[in-house]
C-alpha cells in the first residue's frame, strides 16, 4: 500500500519539476515577463521615493506596504504569462491531454512563478533599501521567510487565476481584478510582518498571529488550488 503511494508521489513531483524547469527555461530564453516585471518594479520604487520623503518616520512605517504593493503589481506581469504562454501553438491542449494530473501541472507552474517572483524581489530589495534608507539586511533571514511565505500566497492565487482567465480576451485586466481582493488577508499579514523587519526590528510576539495568518492563507489556498485546478483546465 505504501509503495504505490510513494511511487505516485515521486512521479507527481517529477512531473511538477519537468513543468517548472520547462517554464523557467522558456522564460530565461525570452525574458519577456522577467524584464517587464523588473523594469516595472524599479520604476514604481523610484516614483514612490519621489512621492514620500525617505527620511520621515511615517514613510518608514509604511515601507512594508509600499514594498508589497510593488511585489503584487510586478508579480501580476509574471503571473499573467504563466498559462498564456501555453496558448501559442495550442500547447495547453497537449499538456491537458497528457497523463499528467492538473495538480502536478499547477504545482510546476507555481514553483516556476515563485522562482521568477523571488528573483524580481531580490533585485528590488537592495534598491528599496537605498531609496528608503532602511536597514533591511539586519533581519535578513526572518525577512526572507516572510517574503517567501507572502510570495507563495501571491503565486498560488495568481497561478490559479491565470489558468482560469487564460481564454479571456481581457485576461491582463481580469487577473489583477480577481487576485488582489482574494490576496487581502495574505497581503495584510505580509505587510504587518515586513514593516518592522525592513526597519531592522525582530519579529515581536504580538506579530505571531499575523505569521500564523500568512501560513494558514498559504496552506488553504494551496490545497484549494490543487483540488480545483483539474476542473478549471477541462471544461
Amino acid at each position, binding site marked *: 500500500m505504501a509503495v504505490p503511494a510513494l511511487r505516485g508521489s515521486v512521479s507527481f513531483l517529477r512531473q511538477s519539476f519537468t513543468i517548472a524547469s520547462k517554464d523557467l527555461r522558456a522564460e530565461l*530564453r525570452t525574458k519577456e515577463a522577467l524584464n517587464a516585471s523588473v523594469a516595472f518594479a524599479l520604476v514604481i520604487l523610484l516614483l514612490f521615493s519621489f512621492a514620500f520623503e525617505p527620511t520621515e518616520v511615517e514613510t518608514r512605517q509604511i515601507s512594508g506596504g509600499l514594498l508589497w504593493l510593488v511585489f503584487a503589481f510586478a508579480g501580476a506581469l509574471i503571473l499573467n504569462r504563466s498559462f498564456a504562454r501555453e496558448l501559442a501553438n495550442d500547447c495547453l491542449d497537449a499538456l491537458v*491531454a497528457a497523463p499528467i*494530473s492538473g495538480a502536478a501541472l499547477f504545482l510546476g507552474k507555481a514553483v516556476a512563478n515563485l522562482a521568477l517572483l523571488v528573483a524580481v524581489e531580490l533585485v528590488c530589495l537592495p534598491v528599496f533599501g537605498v531609496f528608503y534608507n532602511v536597514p533591511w539586511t539586519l533581519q535578513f533571514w526572518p525577512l526572507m521567510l516572510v517574503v517567501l511565505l507572502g510570495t507563495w500566497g501571491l503565486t498560488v492565487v495568481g497561478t490559479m487565476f491565470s489558468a482560469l482567465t487564460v481564454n479571456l480576451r481581457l485576461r491582463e485586466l481580469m487577473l489583477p481584478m480577481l487576485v488582489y481582493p482574494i490576496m487581502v488577508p495574505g497581503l495584510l499579514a505580509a505587510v504587518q510582518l515586513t514593516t518592522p523587519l525592513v526597519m531592522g526590528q525582530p519579529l515581536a510576539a504580538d506579530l505571531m498571529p499575523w505569521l500564523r495568518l500568512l501560513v494558514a492563507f498559504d496552506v488553504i489556498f494551496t490545497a484549494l488550488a490543487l483540488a480545483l485546478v483539474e476542473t478549471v483546465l477541462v471544461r
Partner: protein
Amino acid sequence: MNPVQVAGVWKYYGDYPALRDISFEVQPGACMALLGRNGAGKTTLLRIVAGLARPTRGGVSVCGAECRNRATRHSIGILGHGISLYDELSAFENLHLFARVYGLAEPRRAAMEWLERTGLDRVRDGLVREFSRGMRQRLAVARAFLHEPSVLLLDEPFTALDDRAIALLQTLLRDALAGGRSIVVSTHQLREALELATHVALLVRGRLAHTGERTAEMLEDAGWLYRHYGEA
C-alpha cells in the same frame, strides 16, 4: 471491447447544441474518418474523445476506461490544429519534455529516435521558432507518436502539411493501422482521409447523419457521401 466507444454524447455551448446524441465505436486496427462541413462539430467531438472537454450528456470510453483516466491518457496520441510545441525550446527539448510528461522509461532515447524518424536529428538543438513550417509539422507528428499511443486522434492533420510531412504522416498512420491501433481523423481533405479510412462518420449540424464502412463509391467519388447523406 472496442478501443473507442462514444455513447449518446451531447455538448451544449450555452443553449446551442454543438453535438446531438452522437454514438459510434472504433475497432482495433480501424480508421474512422470524421467528416462534415465547418461547424458540424468534428473538433468538439475529437476534443471530448481526447478528454480536453466534457460532454454535457453521454459518455466516452477509450481502451475500456473513462477518457480523463490517467492510464487512458497514456494510450491517446493527439494531433490538433496547433503543433503543440514550444517555440522557445529546441526540437530535442520539446520531445524530451513530452517523453518525460508521458513517463517514458528512456525519454532521451525516445526523443532521439523520433528526431531520426522524422529527419530532424541534424537540427536537434535548433529552436522551434527558427524552423520552417514543414519542419515544425514533422516535429508535431513526432510528438503525437512519441509514446506509441494505441488510439490516435487527428484533427485536420493534412491541412497545411508539405508533401514530405504528408508522406511521413501517411506512412506512420498505415503502420499504426497495421499494428492494430485505432485512428479517428477529422478532415475536409476527403481524398486523403478516405484512402486511409476503414469507416466513415458524417456529422451534419452536430448530428451523426451516417456512420458505416467506407465503400468503393466513396473512394471513387469523394462527394458521394455528402450527396447521399449531407445537406444540399
